[in-house]
């Protein structure tokens, strides 16, 4: 998917252009830094001849550390049945010590010019495959080899993350994929751009980039194979393009583009203290989503009226124990106080699916996105849920905190969760703890069944918030992480618009407000339609607040209502996108759409 362009004579490396999906706006220029994800799989990465010795040294050091660790661990467990175990440890130790095998891996690094972890993985896999074919107890040895491989590669990966956190300058992180659990271990100040092979607009890499306010391009398919560590790259998050080893003219052109973009962003600054009000005086609440707690000041700096979605997963991921009530109370109080008098809507734990914490044992599932996650875990492990609810109810005495329940698929579940919340209040009362008994509770509408039952749900709660990332994925049956079918994931699908309209109308018929907190809330092509469908609140990444506010402030609600009626009659996403793009281009000439 890339064009290798011939360059001027003085350029040794050819300039390359890779096309991906624009995931976070802006332009970043800098050096590439490779990072592996948390799955134990090494990615192939081309290295320079000069990098060979350091790759070999790195592997040697890691093999030695892993071997030492094995010996120490086996010394600690000195129990009787350890005899068999000892033999296994002995074999592992000998493999890590096998200088002939080490020599083969080194030859792979040198001859194929690939990274150490990949070379190690490929050689081990080759051996394991041969043993597996032999069958019987020889295939057990293959399993042992995979075990050793995982240990070594995990360590080599962890090594990279540490290196990033110690880097002198901010770099552009290049990865096959970037999961939340890996992202949480990174120092955000060392990242100035992100480029990944996998993912679409709503992938975790995209959310992370927007949260960190760094440009990102995802869904590049083959970037990790195409470039080397420390290559100069440009990430154009406005157009979804990555340029590798740009020539002088291109670099200059992009510097100018970047300055122009920064100036345009700055021009939006004056909107910060103005309300999200249409020309004909319909007020919307424009809030921000929060992925990491240290963004609170960004929310205010961008002129958002509160936090429409606080994702609490960061409290559960990247650690081996659960956060207790007190820790959560401190955290939620801090945020509620900082954002007061605006509200913070706290979504209860939404782990499982593609985010698995170490502290809750989630067995492997064939369909994790349809599996044991979010409220399904909370209801089965009420002690986790109650600790979180207690913390929110208590934090609400310090500011304006609300509860949002994720992944509700039916009324039984909702009633059960509401009963648990009431039970929690009784417990707090008994303990004599100060808390806010009238804390508002809302439901995230992200499963089609909940969308269809929106009226029955609205009768029981204070507000609804449409989570479009999952709703669109479930409604259209499109895995948003699968880049092969990512083009089928479409916010502006006519079925999606109809469902959203129904949810908003159902909420209003029961007298509750309806918001939206998925990426669609920040989709420039959708904003006017959502205003026209009478959405009450939009919650977007802090970085998107100014531009969405600009669109709202230049829109007439009456006109938007007519536009929405017209668009709801279209039968294909293509028509809708084409129509809205024309409309927006006419109305907002300098906006990137």
């Amino acid at each position: 998917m890339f064009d290798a362009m011939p360059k001027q004579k003085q350029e040794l490396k050819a300039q390359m252009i890779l096309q991906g999906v624009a995931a976070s706006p802006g332009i970043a220029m800098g050096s590439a830094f490779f990072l592996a994800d948390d799955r134990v799989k090494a990615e192939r990465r081309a290295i320079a001849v000069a990098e060979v010795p350091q790759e070999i040294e790195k592997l040697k050091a890691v093999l030695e550390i892993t071997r030492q660790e094995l010996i120490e661990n086996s010394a600690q467990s000195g129990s009787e049945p350890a005899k068999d175990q000892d033999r296994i440890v002995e074999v592992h130790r000998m493999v890590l010590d096998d200088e002939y095998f080490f020599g083969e891996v080194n030859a792979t690094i040198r001859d194929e010019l690939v990274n150490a972890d990949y070379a190690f993985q490929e050689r081990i896999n080759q051996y394991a495959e041969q043993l597996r074919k032999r069958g019987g107890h020889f295939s057990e040895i293959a399993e042992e080899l995979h075990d050793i491989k995982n240990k070594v590669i995990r360590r080599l990966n962890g090594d990279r993350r540490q290196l990033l956190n110690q880097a002198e300058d901010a770099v552009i992180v290049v990865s096959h994929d970037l999961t939340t659990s890996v992202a949480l271990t990174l120092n955000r100040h060392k990242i100035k751009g992100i480029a990944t092979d996998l993912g679409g607009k709503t992938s975790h890499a995209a959310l992370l980039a927007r949260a960190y306010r760094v440009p990102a391009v995802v869904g590049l398919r083959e970037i990790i194979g195409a470039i080397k560590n420390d290559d100069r790259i440009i990430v154009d998050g406005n157009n979804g393009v990555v340029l590798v080893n740009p020539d002088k003219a291109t670099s200059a052109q992009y510097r100018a583009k970047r300055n122009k973009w920064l100036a345009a962003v700055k021009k939006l600054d004056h909107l910060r203290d103005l309300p999200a009000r249409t020309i004909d005086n319909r007020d919307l609440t424009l809030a921000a989503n929060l992925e990491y707690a240290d963004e609170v000041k960004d929310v205010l700096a961008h002129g958002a009226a509160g936090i429409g979605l606080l994702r609490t997963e960061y409290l559960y991921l990247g650690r081996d124990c659960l956060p207790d009530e007190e820790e959560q109370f401190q955290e939620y109080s801090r945020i509620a106080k900082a954002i007061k008098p605006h509200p913070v809507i706290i979504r209860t734990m939404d782990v499982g699916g593609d985010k698995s914490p170490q502290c809750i044992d989630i067995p492997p599932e064939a369909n994790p996105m349809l599996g044991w996650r979010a409220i399904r875990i909370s209801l089965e492990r009420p002690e986790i849920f109650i600790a979180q609810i207690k913390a929110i109810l208590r934090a609400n005495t310090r500011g304006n905190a609300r509860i949002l329940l994720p992944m509700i698929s039916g009324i039984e579940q909702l009633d059960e969760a509401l009963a648990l919340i009431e039970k929690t209040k009784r417990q707090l009362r008994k303990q004599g703890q100060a808390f806010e008994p009238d804390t508002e509770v809302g439901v995230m509408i992200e499963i089609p069944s909940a969308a269809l039952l929106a009226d029955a749900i609205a009768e029981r709660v204070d507000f609804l918030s449409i989570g479009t990332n999952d709703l669109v994925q479930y409604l259209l049956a499109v895995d948003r992480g699968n880049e092969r079918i990512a083009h089928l994931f479409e916010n502006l699908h006519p079925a999606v618009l109809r469902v959203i309209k129904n949810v908003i109308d159902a909420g209003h018929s029961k007298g509750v407000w309806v918001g939206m907190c998925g990426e669609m809330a920040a989709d420039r092509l959708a904003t006017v339609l959502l205003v026209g469908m009478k959405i009450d609140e939009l919650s977007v990444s802090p970085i998107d607040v100014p531009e969405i506010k600009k669109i709202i402030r230049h829109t007439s609600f009456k006109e938007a209502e007519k536009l929405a009626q017209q668009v709801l009659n279209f039968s294909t996403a293509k028509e809708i996108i084409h129509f809205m793009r024309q409309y927006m281009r006419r109305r907002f000439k300098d906006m990137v759409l």
Partner: protein
Amino acid sequence: MVEKKLAVRNKMGLHARPSSKLVQKASTFKSDIHIKRDDQIVNGKSIMGVMMLAAAMETELTISANGADEEQALAAMVELFESKFGED
């Protein structure tokens, strides 16, 4: 160089444990030690190599030693196979 043909005699064949014993023993000699199965030759001092032979019971192997202490080395290897690596 000296060499000898023999067959694996322990039930489990050259799985992880006997392989580690063999490599540990081989490593005590100065001579190069190689093991051949059909047309695959591996280094007797490499556990990965020896395990890779996946030699089950009755598999025919050729052990060779080459160096200052080749006689002793070969004798020690043969002894290991004959003692069934202390198994069974």
